[in-house]
């Protein structure tokens, strides 16, 4: 690659003193002083959380209140800092959601380890885990920040569902085999 030598423009006398530049700079800063602040006074004012923000990972329920997580443990697998720990369990045959068969017995996310990468949300095949707009967690002990299933559901709440995958499955089950 050819090197192009640029000649430096010689400075004028005034420029050599740097004073015009200094004054120019001071003019800019002075002008800035009278502009309104651009910052947000955080605890009093809350920022508008943009869509796709990656806050605290939470577990959600579908609009019918069904626990969406089926403990497939993909999030546990994909989690780079190993913050997620799931103990799978089987849904009781008498339960309303018996057709789902599997649900987490325990589900914990160690928020001290979580790096908010959002892999868990991306990998979740059931759309059960979402990084929501909560971003400031605090606690007095390490244990307190290992969030358990109930806490995760409390934070996650209910999100709209596009598929109702399992409800449809239930419908099909109730409809039965149409072949005879």
């Amino acid at each position, binding site marked *: 690659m050819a090197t192009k030598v640029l000649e430096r423009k010689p400075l004028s006398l005034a420029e050599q003193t740097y004073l015009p530049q200094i004054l120019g700079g*001071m003019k*800019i*800063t*002075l002008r800035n*002083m009278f502009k309104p*602040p651009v*910052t947000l*006074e955080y605890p009093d004012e809350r920022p508008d959380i943009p869509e796709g923000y990656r806050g605290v990972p939470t577990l959600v329920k579908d609009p019918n209140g069904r626990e969406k997580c089926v403990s497939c443990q993909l999030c546990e697998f994909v989690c780079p800092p190993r913050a997620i720990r799931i103990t799978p369990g089987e849904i009781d045959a008498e339960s309303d959601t018996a057709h789902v068969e599997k649900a987490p017995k325990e589900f914990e996310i160690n928020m001290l380890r979580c790096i908010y990468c959002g892999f868990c949300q991306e990998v979740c095949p059931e759309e059960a885990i979402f990084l929501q707009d909560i971003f400031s967690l605090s606690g007095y002990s390490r244990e307190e920040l290992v969030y358990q299933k109930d806490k995760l559901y409390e934070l996650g709440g209910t999100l709209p569902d596009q598929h109702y995958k399992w409800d449809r499955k239930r419908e099909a089950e109730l409809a039965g085999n149409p072949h005879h």
Partner: protein
Amino acid sequence: MEWNELLLIVFKALLVLSVVMSLAAYAVLAERKVAAWVQGRVGPNRTQIPLLGGIPIIGTFLTRLGVFQPAADGLKFLFKEEPTPGHVNKFYYLLAPMIAFIPAMTTMTVLPFGQYVNEAGEVQPLVLANLDIGILFILAVSSLGVYGIVLGGWASNSKFPFLGGIRASAQMISYELSLGLSLLPVFLWFGGSLNLFNIVQGQTDLLFGFLPQWTILFQPLSALIFLVALFAETNRLPFDMPESETDLVAGYNTEYGAFKFGLYFVGEYTHIIIGSGVFVALFLGGWNLPWVTLPAGLFGTVLSVLIFVIKMLALVFVFMWVRWTLPRFRYDQVMTLGWRWLLPLAVANLVFYAIIIAVIEQF
């Protein structure tokens, strides 16, 4: 000396001390606020004093202005745990902040900050000690401040403070020359008096009936050199070599905390304030306003002090303004500027004015 006179002096000293101290404290606030405004931020706006802050509109306004912040800062300096690192030389380590603080405070004794005109039209300066060699005193005492920094840097027994201290000493010594030299034309101008009060008084009259006889108008170069040197002497940006956070963490005061750090801190701001005062007295006509004659009596006195303080604060603002505008020099640039530019310039300036004054005096 009568005991009541002594009492008056002590009272006056305490008054000035407290004013300067609180000015220093509020300078810190001002610094933070100016920085915030320049950068489009809000600055300190949360500290409240319980009852005062609770007053409906005013309280909120003051709180948002951050006027209670210095109280919090001061309390913090006082009550924070005082760690003394194990590796320091304890005696000098403790001594250094005091050495930095005391000269800064001492310089104010000779700074006139107003006048009292009695019925007879006699003018009395408002000053703690009206020395004839006031400016020499200031130069002498304020240069002691560098010992505080050098000593602190050395006593900390740690590399960053040490580097900070070394830089500070080199820088101070370099710029002190220009500082002193830049003042000589001023004293020549005012008939060789080294009394600050006289110099201020000398700037009272209008030349040719309309031109304010402020030194800065006649000796702009002196003023510029003095100002630049003053920046360097007070370790302010763009000359904050001793601190330079980016390469020396906090420079000479890295190992200091709590009250000892507070002393350094207040000392630095006192330096700025006193420096500004000196500049106002020498170049900006002190408490004089052009085309205005201050009335006699107490009212005039108060007015004069106000004018002086306002001018001084304006200059303090310039200090801050510059700080948040200019980037830091490199160390070699500081040295180059000091020795290769300012010093020759100051000498040339002196020679020039010496000739001019000689020529004027011929007539």
